[in-house]
């Protein structure tokens, strides 16, 4: 109750601070560029072609009337760089039968009819151009953890630089802390953005899973050199990253690996961004290769490096046909391989796919559906790392999501979501489980 009052008060203060003079509310980038949401987004958080270019240009493409306060040798933006988000699940109905998850959480017990009157997430975004060639983006979140506490984190912190190379060509550098795809502009690979919209239930398993490493873990840190070339059509990126840790758990596990000692990994990304009549199509490929430092492992060897590799191909399509019928689809295929997983030359692999489609009419009424699959190979009942969150010992996970959305305004969404997740376990770990969740989502951006 007390936590709810604190969170509600925080939201109220933020709304008052950030309410613009006009009757409609827009986040900080829209204020800086003096353009509506539809300038950069199809349906938030998905980016359209201009929005992808805006991201690669390090959020610097503001209105020509952008002003800075320079008196007394200051360099201060006149427009507040803050935006806020409130996420609220007022009603959740779950039917979980996974006996292996932590007790007291959604996945850890049969919990029919769980309702919540508290805010589930309050986030503040700091997003701004800093000067002509640099911009910054960071988010700070307070998430309810299913008890009376709220966990606070800074999942994303990015400093981006850019330099124009002539018409339709930009080169940039991103320093970040967050998911491995933090610098990536494509919707099909933007795992964090999808999480923000639909939370963990919709994150592609092939991004969130691993034995010693996960692409979608928020503890990745790194540097990405990237750019748009050939008239903003070819996207290429090369990066050096570390972290992306996975907690060891299960029988006998006691600790996680340590990001600060982790060797740097290589990230390569190429994509093509082709404008179509009334939309765009993208396709590309990602390769991640490196080592993960494990310390305090509960196994026979306590400190060692595992070798990790990930490969993905992705594609997306956006089309706005008729008067205002917006259709989008994103697909991601991937595989992963890890060697020396427990310090004894063990090898583990996975492969899987994710596809999400959506249709919105008038940008007010929409339907979203996704299919999320992963198959683990060579997983053993004696493995003591988690795979894909709490699905310890999973052999295969198949999940689908269906949502019906209503947006009275572009920055306010009400949705009814259903998620069905079936997990098949390695022999000896557990019987197959099917988790079903229905929930109402209220999502507001200021």
């Amino acid at each position: 109750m007390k936590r709810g009052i604190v969170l509600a008060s925080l939201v109220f203060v933020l709304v008052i601070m950030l309410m613009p003079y006009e009757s409609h509310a827009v986040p900080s980038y829209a204020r800086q560029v003096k353009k509506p949401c539809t300038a950069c987004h199809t349906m938030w958080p998905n980016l359209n072609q201009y929005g992808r270019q805006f991201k690669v240009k390090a959020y610097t493409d503001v209105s020509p009337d952008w002003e800075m306060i320079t008196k007394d040798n200051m360099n201060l933006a006149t427009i507040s760089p803050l935006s806020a988000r409130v996420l609220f699940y007022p009603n959740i109905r779950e039917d979980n039968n996974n006996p292996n998850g932590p007790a007291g959480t959604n996945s850890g017990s049969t919990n029919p009819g769980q309702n919540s009157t508290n805010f589930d997430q309050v986030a503040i975004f700091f997003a701004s151009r800093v000067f002509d060639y640099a911009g910054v983006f960071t988010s700070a979140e307070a998430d309810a953890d299913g008890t009376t506490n709220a966990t606070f984190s800074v999942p994303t912190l990015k400093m981006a630089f850019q330099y124009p190379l002539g018409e339709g060509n930009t080169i940039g550098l991103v320093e970040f802390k967050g998911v491995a795809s933090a610098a990536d502009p494509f919707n099909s690979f933007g795992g964090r953005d999808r999480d923000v919209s639909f939370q963990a239930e919709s994150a592609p398993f092939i991004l969130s899973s691993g034995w010693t490493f996960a692409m979608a873990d928020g503890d990745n840190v790194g540097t990405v050199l990237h750019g748009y070339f050939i008239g903003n059509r070819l996207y290429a990126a090369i990066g050096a990253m570390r972290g992306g840790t996975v907690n060891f758990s299960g029988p006998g596990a006691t600790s996680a690996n340590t990001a600060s000692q982790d060797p740097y990994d290589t990230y390569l990304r190429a994509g093509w961004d082709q404008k179509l009549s009334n939309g765009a199509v993208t396709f590309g490929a990602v390769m991640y290769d490196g080592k993960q430092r494990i310390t305090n492992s509960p196994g026979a060897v306590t400190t060692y490096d595992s070798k990790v590799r990930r490969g993905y191909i992705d594609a997306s399509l956006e089309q706005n046909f008729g008067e205002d019928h917006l259709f989008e689809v994103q697909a991601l295929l991937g595989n992963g391989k890890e060697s020396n997983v427990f310090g004894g030359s063990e090898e583990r692999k996975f492969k899987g796919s994710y596809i999400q489609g959506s249709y919105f009419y008038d940008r007010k009424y929409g339907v979203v559906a996704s299919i999320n699959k992963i198959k683990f190979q060579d997983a053993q009942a004696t493995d003591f790392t988690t795979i894909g969150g709490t699905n310890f010992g999973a052999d295969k996970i198949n999940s689908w999501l269906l949502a019906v959305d209503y947006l009275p305004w572009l920055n306010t969404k009400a949705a009814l979501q259903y998620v069905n997740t079936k997990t098949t376990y390695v022999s000896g770990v557990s019987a197959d489980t099917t988790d079903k969740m229905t929930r109402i989502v209220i999502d507001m951006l200021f």
Partner: protein
Amino acid sequence: MQKKAIVVCAMMLLFSFSPVAFAYETIVVKNGGSIEGVVEFTGAVVPKDQMVKLSSETKYCGNSLPAEKYLIKNGKIENVVVSIVDIKSGKAIPSEPIVLTNLKCGFSPHVAVGFQGGKVIQKNDDTIFHNIHTYLNGKTMFNIGLPEKGSSVTKPLLRTGLMEVTCDSHPWMHGYIQVLDHPYAVVTNAKGDFAIKDVPAGTYTVEAWHEALGKVKAANVKVESGKASKIKLEFKK
């Protein structure tokens, strides 16, 4: 039963995106007549167009632009849509799309005529970002960014009515497209002149619409084969 339901739903979905059937009938017009004339302002006080001070993008667009709202010169009114009301049959509706260009921080043309079943192409000929927000009969029809010179979007004209075209990035920008279900409509030139051609013989009501002055009508306009009917439409206020 389930199969039938799926087929019916699919057909409904398909037809919801197909061009709307409308009442106008295309016939061969032989030796048609024409309605020609001028639109004038005859009121006591002639409204004058002001210069609009620009709130943004002044480096590219300048500090101000003419409003292009009244466009009355020597009593003649430009940019008036003159159309025949409720004509049910006649020549074919033009198939060429209407093109509305974002040019020098305004719309060109400022006023146009479109036809149900046709298309409108909105393009950006400026080197600045424009965000086209189009309303049909007061309700948002679509809202799409045209980020660079050469960007364009093509949309179908499925319904009749008044389309108001604005730019969310530049609030002074306004354009209009009257969408009709027949081809007998034109926009007056700088001298206020108009000519509606290939009209089947008959008696018609002619309407003039102006974005600021409203509407006036001329009833009982008689059109004879091969002849031009001359009329004058007057706005008084």
